[in-house]
């Protein structure tokens, strides 16, 4: 059994931000990351971030990942496990980690769950044809491995991921034949949608995908119009020729570790699915187990980084470690989160967080 003050599961923006605070306070920390490099989704994000300078606005996602990773260099109280999956968490904070066919047990005084989220899937005819991808897979192929998913693509979903990945596809020389959205308006920021419009992308609102057609692989997509009650309207089917279909219809939190350890979980649609009930200290119902980032509700990397710092700080505080100006730092971070969640774009997340007990007014 390997003993640690803190084990952080997930090396994305939330986990890395939490680690920095904890190692600065002198905690003995392990980060467990499933992929072969740190950074989470940031490493696939080629666009510049919006928002505040505090969360690296105007910097590209993969550059933010490098900043966060560089911040962790030179600490001998930090262990980073790559290609390592935390396969289980038990109520006594024993974690089993599987890395290169090695099965290891860690006993943690505190745990931060920063596992992120996975993509939601869509049910339509022939949805298992080769050529049908999730938006995350498309980003991984293009931006990590330099591989185009197809010559042409139809994008399903107009949230920020759907909009940004469409733009990246165009940048990579792929023709975006249509962007399909079931709702009556675009889900993501208008500035991204406007960019696609200017590039001549057909944005089809009140529309969904009815079926995929193809023998060995995807050849055509059939779309259909929806009425106000999300029902298909007869005789509005349209065929679009394409060799790739990209699904971007939202994410759901990777809640499994907390669920299996017996933390109280809540199903909150605004947050993407099962999320942990948390105290105002970001602690789950299992003492000294904290959660931050997308696993506590689907948001953006900017808020994941701030949440990561807060949970790092809570782990430091609860185990009796110290940092300079801890109270001021905590107040500042909470203010930053409130600012990030202001305005109409933050409405959904505010509504969801109210259901788990965090109050934003």
């Amino acid at each position, binding site marked *: 059994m390997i003993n640690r003050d803190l084990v952080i599961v997930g090396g994305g923006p939330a986990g890395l931000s939490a680690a920095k605070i904890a190692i600065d306070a002198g905690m003995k920390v392990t980060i467990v990351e499933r992929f072969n490099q740190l950074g989470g989704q940031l490493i696939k994000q080629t666009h510049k971030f919006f928002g505040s300078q505090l969360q690296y606005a105007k910097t590209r996602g993969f550059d933010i990942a490098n900043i966060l990773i560089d911040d962790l260099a030179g600490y001998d109280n930090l262990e980073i496990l790559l290609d390592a999956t935390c396969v289980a968490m038990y109520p006594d904070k024993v974690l089993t980690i599987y890395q290169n066919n090695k099965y290891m047990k860690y006993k943690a005084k505190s745990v931060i769950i920063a596992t992120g989220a996975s993509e939601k*899937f869509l049910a339509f005819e022939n*949805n298992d044809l080769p050529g049908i991808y999730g938006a995350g897979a498309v980003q991984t192929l293009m931006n990590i491995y330099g591989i185009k998913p197809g010559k042409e693509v139809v994008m399903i979903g107009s949230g920020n991921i759907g909009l940004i990945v469409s733009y990246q596809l165009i940048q990579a020389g792929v023709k975006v034949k249509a962007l399909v959205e079931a709702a009556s308006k675009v889900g993501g920021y208008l500035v991204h949608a406007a960019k696609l419009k200017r590039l001549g992308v057909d944005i089809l609102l009140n529309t969904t995908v009815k079926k995929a057609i193809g023998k060995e692989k995807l050849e055509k997509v059939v779309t259909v119009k929806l009425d106000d009650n999300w029902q298909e309207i007869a005789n509005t089917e349209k065929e679009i020729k394409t060799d790739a279909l990209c699904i971007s219809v939202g994410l759901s939190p990777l809640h499994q570790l907390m669920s299996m350890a017996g933390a109280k979980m809540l199903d909150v649609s605004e947050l993407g699915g099962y999320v942990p009930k948390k105290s105002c200290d970001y602690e789950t119902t299992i003492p000294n187990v904290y959660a931050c980032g997308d696993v506590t509700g689907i948001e953006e990397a900017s808020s994941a980084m701030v949440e990561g710092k807060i949970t790092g700080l809570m782990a430091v505080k609860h185990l009796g470690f110290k940092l300079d100006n801890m109270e001021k730092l905590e107040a500042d971070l909470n203010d930053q989160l409130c600012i990030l969640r202001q305005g109409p774009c933050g409405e959904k997340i505010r509504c969801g967080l109210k259901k788990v007990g965090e109050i934003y007014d």
Partner: protein
Amino acid sequence: MSKKDIIICRCEDVSLADIHKALDMGYRDFESIKRILRVGMGPCQGQTCSNLIKNEIARYNKVHPETVKTHKIRPLVSGVVLKDIAESKDE
């Protein structure tokens, strides 16, 4: 619409037709459907299909999806070779 061509659980190759048939046979909750169709028991452990199945159960029982429970999560979250567990020296 060909329900047998709509794949709900990719890991265990379960279609919408299979889910509807199970519901019609009286299996009305996730755990029961899991036991006869193996949904949620493959490599992704239900991370892909659970939302879709939850919605189908809600529609069939005419309740809100947030009130439908999905399957119980148990260790481990992904496949581990038994030999590797046996050979781990940890106590």
